[in-house]
C-alpha cells in the first residue's frame, strides 16, 4: 500500500516536471517558430533594408518596415508621455495621501478597466477620441485631418496601460520601508518633500521597470490601435498624421498573406521583431522587479 503511494508520488513528480520544462520552452519555441517562418524574407533581403527602407510593395517583393516601425514608435511614445505622469501622480496619491476608503474605491475601478477587452477601447476611440481630434483639437494646428491619427492611437493606448503602470507602482511604493518615510518626516520634511527625496528616489528602478513594461504592452497592442490609427503606410510627421503600427499591419493583412509570395514570411518577420523587442523589455523589467521584491524581503 505504501509502495503504491510512493510510486504515485514519483510518477506525478516526473510528469509535472516534464510539463514544467516543456511549458518553459514555449518561450524558445515562440521565437524559433517565428524565426523559421521568416527565414525566406531574411534570405531575400538584408536586415538593414527590411528595417530602414520605406518601400512597401508586396507585389514587387519589396518589404521595407520603416514606416510601420515609426508608426509603432509614435503611438508608443505618445501613449507613454500621456500615461506615465498621470499614472505616477495617481499611484503616489493612492499610496501616500488617499484615505483607505478612497483607495478601496479607486483600485477596483482601475482593475475593472484592465479587464475591458481591446476591441471595446477601439470602439470607444472611434466614437469619442477620433471625432474630438477631428473637430476640436486638430483644427487649431493643421488644416485637415480625419481624426484617425497616431494621437488617437496614443490616447487609447494610454488608457489601456494606466492599470498596468499604476498597479506595479503601488506595489513598488508599498515596498519602500515605512521607517524611511518616518525618518524623513521626523527631520521636519513635509510629506511632499519626503515623497520627492525619499519615496521617488528609492523607487527609481521600479518606475523604470513599470515604464519598460508599459512600453512593451503598448508596442504589441493590436486591435484597438488598428481601429483608430488610420493605417496609411507613411512615416508620421506630426501627431495628427495617420500611422500604421506593426501589429496593425500584421492583423490587417492576414487575409492576403497566403496569396502573395514572401508576404507571409514578411508578416512573420514583423511578428518576430515584436517578439524579440517585447521579450527583451519584459525580461529586463521583470528582473528589476524581482530584485526589488527580494531586497524588501
Amino acid at each position, binding site marked *: 500500500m505504501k509502495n503504491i503511494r510512493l510510486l504515485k508520488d514519483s510518477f506525478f513528480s516526473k510528469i509535472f516536471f516534464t510539463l514544467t520544462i516543456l511549458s518553459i520552452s514555449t518561450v524558445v519555441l515562440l521565437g524559433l517558430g517565428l524565426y523559421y517562418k521568416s527565414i525566406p524574407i531574411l534570405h531575400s533581403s538584408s536586415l538593414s533594408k527590411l528595417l530602414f527602407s520605406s518601400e512597401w510593395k508586396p507585389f514587387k517583393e519589396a518589404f521595407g518596415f520603416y514606416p510601420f516601425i515609426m508608426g509603432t514608435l509614435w503611438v508608443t511614445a505618445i501613449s507613454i508621455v500621456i500615461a506615465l505622469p498621470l499614472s505616477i501622480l495617481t499611484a503616489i*496619491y493612492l499610496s501616500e495621501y488617499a484615505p483607505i476608503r478612497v483607495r478601496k474605491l479607486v483600485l477596483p475601478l482601475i482593475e475593472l478597466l484592465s479587464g475591458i477587452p481591446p476591441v471595446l477601447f477601439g470602439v470607444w476611440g472611434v466614437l469619442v477620441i477620433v471625432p474630438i481630434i477631428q473637430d476640436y483639437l486638430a483644427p487649431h494646428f493643421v488644416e485637415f485631418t480625419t481624426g484617425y491619427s497616431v494621437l488617437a492611437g496614443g490616447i487609447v493606448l494610454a488608457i489601456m496601460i494606466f492599470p498596468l503602470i499604476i498597479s506595479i507602482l503601488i506595489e513598488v511604493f508599498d515596498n519602500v520601508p515605512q521607517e524611511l518615510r518616518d525618518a524623513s518626516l521626523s527631520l521636519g520634511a513635509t510629506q511632499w518633500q519626503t515623497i520627492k527625496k525619499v519615496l521617488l528616489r528609492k523607487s527609481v528602478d521600479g518606475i523604470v521597470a513599470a515604464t519598460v513594461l508599459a512600453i512593451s504592452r503598448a508596442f504589441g497592442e493590436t486591435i484597438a490601435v488598428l481601429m483608430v490609427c488610420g493605417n496609411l503606410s507613411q512615416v508620421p510627421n506630426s501627431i495628427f498624421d495617420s500611422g500604421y503600427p506593426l501589429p496593425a499591419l500584421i492583423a490587417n493583412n492576414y487575409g492576403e498573406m497566403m496569396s502573395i509570395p514572401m508576404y507571409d514570411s514578411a508578416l512573420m518577420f514583423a511578428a518576430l521583431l515584436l517578439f524579440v523587442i517585447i521579450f527583451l523589455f519584459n525580461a529586463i523589467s521583470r528582473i528589476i522587479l524581482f530584485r526589488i521584491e527580494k531586497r524588501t524581503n
Partner: protein
Amino acid sequence: MRKIEENIFKGLMIFSTVLISSTLFMILYTIFSKGLGSLTWDMVSKIPEGGFYIGKGGGILNAIVGSLYITLGSTLLGLLVSIPIVIYINIYAKKNSFLANITRLSYDILFGIPSIVYGAFGFAIMVYMGLKTSLLAGIITVTLMIIPILVRAMDEAVRVVPEEMRNSVYSLGATRYETAKIILRQSIPGIVTAILLSFGRAIGDAACVLFTAGFTDSIPTSLDQPAATLPLSIFFQLSSPIEEVQNRAYAAAVVLTIVVLIISITAKIVSKNLSKNKI
C-alpha cells in the same frame, strides 16, 4: 513656498486619480448609450441571415456561441497544463529553487507577449500541421495565451497557503502528491479567480483568433470548422460603411461589455471571499 508646491502637486494628483478612475465610466457610458438602442432579442438569439452585412436581418448568435466554445475549450485545456506546473513549482520543487524561479520569470515574460504574436505563432503551427482556420486552431492558440495568466494567478493563490498547514500535512505522513491535493483544495477561491481572469481575457481577445479561428456565419458543429468570435464580429461590423451594420456592432459591444463586467465582478467577489476565509 513649500506648502504651495505641495498643494499644487496634491491638486494634480487628485485630478489624475479622478481622470483615470472616470475613464472606465466614460467608456461604459459611450458603449451603452450607443449600443443599447440597437440591442434586440433577435441580435442575441439568431445567426446572421442572408445580407446580414448589408443591413438585413439576423443576429450574432454565431459569434456568441463561437466565443463561448473557444473560451471554454481553452480554459479547460489551459487548466490541464497549468495546474501541474503550479503544483510542481510550489510543492515538488524546493523553495526558491532555480527551476521555480526561472519558471516564474518565463511566465512573467510570456504574460507580456502580445496576443498578435501568439496569433502569428498559432498560424505558423497551423500551417505546419496542415490545419485550416478552425475552432481547434483557435482553442490551441488562445490556450497558449492564457496559460501564463492561469499560472501566475494560481501561483499567487497557492503561495499564500500558510507554511504551517503544509508542514502539518507532511507530518501526518502524506506524500507530496497528497499534500498537493490538500493545498489545492485550500486555494480553490484563488483558482476560481484565476479561471475567471483568463476567461475574461480569452473572450475579449481578437488578435489571437483573427488568424486561427477564422470567421463564419454559422455555429460550428465540429472542431475542424471555423468559428466566429464576438470581438471580431464587432470589429468587422464596425468597418462597414452602412449605418445599420455599425449600430449592430455597438449592440454587440454592449453584449461583450456585459459579459466581461459580469466575469470581472464575480472574480472580484470570489477573491474577496478568499481573503475573508484565510486561516
